[in-house]
């Protein structure tokens, strides 16, 4: 295996463009190290483009939830990444670190989808220690691009709640799970996000040059506005009589953590059924790392029966929620079959 890795490394030539696409890999770090830039150098006008690009990366994350894929100059892009990390670190805001790392992970995912197979294998091996094997021509397996060991698949697939990710819905043979490129790449988004997030969290906090200090206060200002906005919105709902599953979903949203698709479905159907409007519901979501207002609006309207098949969806039953691991029952739940019954039963029991 060791020998095989050396051969693989020799076969792969990573150009500057590649390092710009994947600035979190070791080779990009080595490239920057060789340039021997000191932090105080950043005040020099030569670096203005780099700092500008670093700020853009963060603003993209805040405004568009994905860092732009455009690479104008590879060197600038590569250097802007650690500077963006530093700015996020110095803003000292968990929410920002969270959305920024996800936005970078989505950018990387977009590049990987169309990447050379040798680079995909190299990144999976060196960054995540996963052996990805290319599926060569085979009549029965021609629709797949890669295979990975079952345990590597399961360690990542169980974070998804959609049934298509269940092992039984995959082609499994001789210890391997067969995947198409986009599936393989989707599998590791969260891990890449965590790598970037941890790099931000573990960064030292050096004395900053003026130009970085300015960037930090600019970005901090943006984040503050965003947070005030969210808090105003979330304070409109103070659910005392919501069932624990719905409260769990709400709390997850309020912490800005990822809520699985089915959790969002539960929340939307529940709130629509108790008389909340589509707009009130959409306003709950902006804290989510992957929030897209247009898509969320469409989805909630769809659930409300205003679009698509014009079916107003019912709130899922307690049994279904259990299957999806979203049931957090308390004693009131023993008497109900659907979360919608909770409020009524709880107030009756109080009396």
């Amino acid at each position: 295996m060791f020998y095989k890795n050396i051969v693989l490394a020799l076969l792969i030539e990573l150009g500057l463009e590649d390092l710009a696409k994947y600035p979190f890999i070791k080779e990009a770090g080595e490239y920057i190290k060789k340039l021997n830039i000191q932090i105080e150098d950043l005040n020099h006008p030569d670096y203005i483009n780099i700092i500008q690009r670093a700020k853009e990366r963060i603003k993209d994350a805040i405004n568009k939830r994905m860092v732009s894929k455009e690479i104008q100059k590879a060197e600038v892009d590569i250097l802007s990444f650690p500077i963006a990390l530093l700015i996020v670190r110095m803003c000292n805001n968990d929410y920002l670190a969270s959305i920024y790392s996800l936005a970078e992970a989505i950018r990387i995912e977009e590049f990987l989808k169309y990447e050379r197979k040798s680079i995909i294998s190299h990144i999976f091996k060196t960054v995540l220690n996963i052996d990805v094997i290319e599926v060569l021509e085979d009549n029965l397996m021609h629709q797949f691009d890669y295979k990975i060991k079952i345990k590597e698949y399961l360690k990542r697939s169980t974070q998804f709640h959609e049934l298509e990710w269940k092992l039984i819905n995959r082609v499994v043979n001789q210890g391997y799970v067969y995947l198409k490129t986009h599936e393989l790449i989707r599998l590791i988004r969260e891990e890449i996000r965590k790598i970037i997030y941890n790099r931000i969290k573990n960064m030292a906090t050096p004395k900053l040059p003026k130009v970085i200090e300015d960037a930090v206060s600019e970005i901090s200002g943006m984040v503050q506005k965003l947070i005030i906005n969210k808090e105003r919105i979330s304070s409109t709902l103070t659910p005392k009589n919501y069932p624990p599953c719905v409260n769990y979903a709400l709390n997850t949203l309020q912490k800005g953590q990822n809520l699985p698709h089915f959790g969002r479905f539960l929340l939307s159907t529940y709130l629509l059924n108790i008389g909340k409007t589509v707009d009130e519901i959409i306003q709950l979501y902006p804290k989510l790392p992957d929030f897209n207002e247009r898509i969320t609006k469409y989805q909630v309207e769809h659930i409300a029966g205003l679009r698509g098949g014009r079916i107003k969806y019912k709130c899922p039953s307690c049994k279904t929620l259990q299957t999806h691991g979203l049931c957090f029952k308390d004693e009131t739940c023993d008497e109900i079959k659907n979360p919608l019954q909770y409020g009524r039963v709880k107030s009756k029991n109080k009396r």
Partner: protein
Amino acid sequence: MDDKTLALMKQAFKQYYFKAGDKIIPPTRMSEREFGYIPFGGSMIRHLSFKTFGDLYALLVREAPHSVYYSAAYYHEPTLPMHDKGWKGGDLIFDIDADNLKLPCKKDHDLWECKNCGLKRIGLRPEKCPNCGEVSISELNWACEKCLEAAKNEALKLIEILMKDFGINKSEIKTYFSGNMGYHITIESAEFEDLDQTARSEIADYVSGRGLIPESIGVFKRATYEDLLKNLPRVGEPGWRGRLAISFKNWKVKGFDNDNDVIKKIATLYGKIRYSKFKKRLEVEALNMGAVIDTMVTTDVHRIFRMPDTLHGETGLLKKMCDNLLDFDPLNEAVVLSDELVEVFIDYSPKFRLKDQIYRTFKKEKVKLPLMAAVYLAGKGLARVI
């Protein structure tokens, strides 16, 4: 159980363990596992650890327990409370129990007893006692030869999936008769040992055929006939697609009598019954083709499991490794107690076989039985020493 019967059982177990020292294969990674046992007439004692096989064997001979368990998990400190043990990993385990197969013969040999009025009957447990209306009713599950054979078939199905789909070598799959109603399968492999509860539950669902969606075999809600001809699985494909392709041969669809047009047959059927009904049919088919396992056992990473080469307190039979499962006869090969005669009173017992001897049905009678048969009935509470 009365004291005399308990004493007989304990003595029988003690005698066996005393002689069987060299037949017991110590569990691997022994010092990392938690052990537990149920003494005759007592309740479970857990969180034990043994550094050497000598220490463990001394316990078997001294206590001659009703049941002995060891953890599938490996811990840093097996004797500490669960949260402090430090989970390091664990064997991948499967439990196949004839009782979960819900076979038709259950009603011929299972027994129930009302905890209120004491009414006893053969058959499936009713929801409430027909005599007094009590809902608290105890149940005695019996495994007849048909049950054990059916459990063996499930084990064979499971082993095939583990070998073909999971790529596990036959030598890594240890199959045991459980000592009572079925089979245990243990896989000790670095490939699977560090999987968490959710990953294990995915494996449990996979082998039992649970959670399969039509999309995984190329059947979408809006799929056209042509889409289906292209996407439906062919015989020879790996995994569940291939497994279902084989089963499609047996699906009956009007107008399709031969095996040549299986794909067309299924595509036509889909055109007739559409998505929801097709999905239901597929789900039933997958469950039939999967192995019936107790998913809780596979999923629970802290589970303690009966230790191989120990006796089962409800039967006196051994949890025994099956080198050749196909030919394994549990009611012969797992019988290890002596044939010394003991006198017992039998309340009721169905017909059964142990070794090569067939025992008739007994009803409220005093009989002299070989120790192995006396323990077999006494362990289930059907006989008592007089």
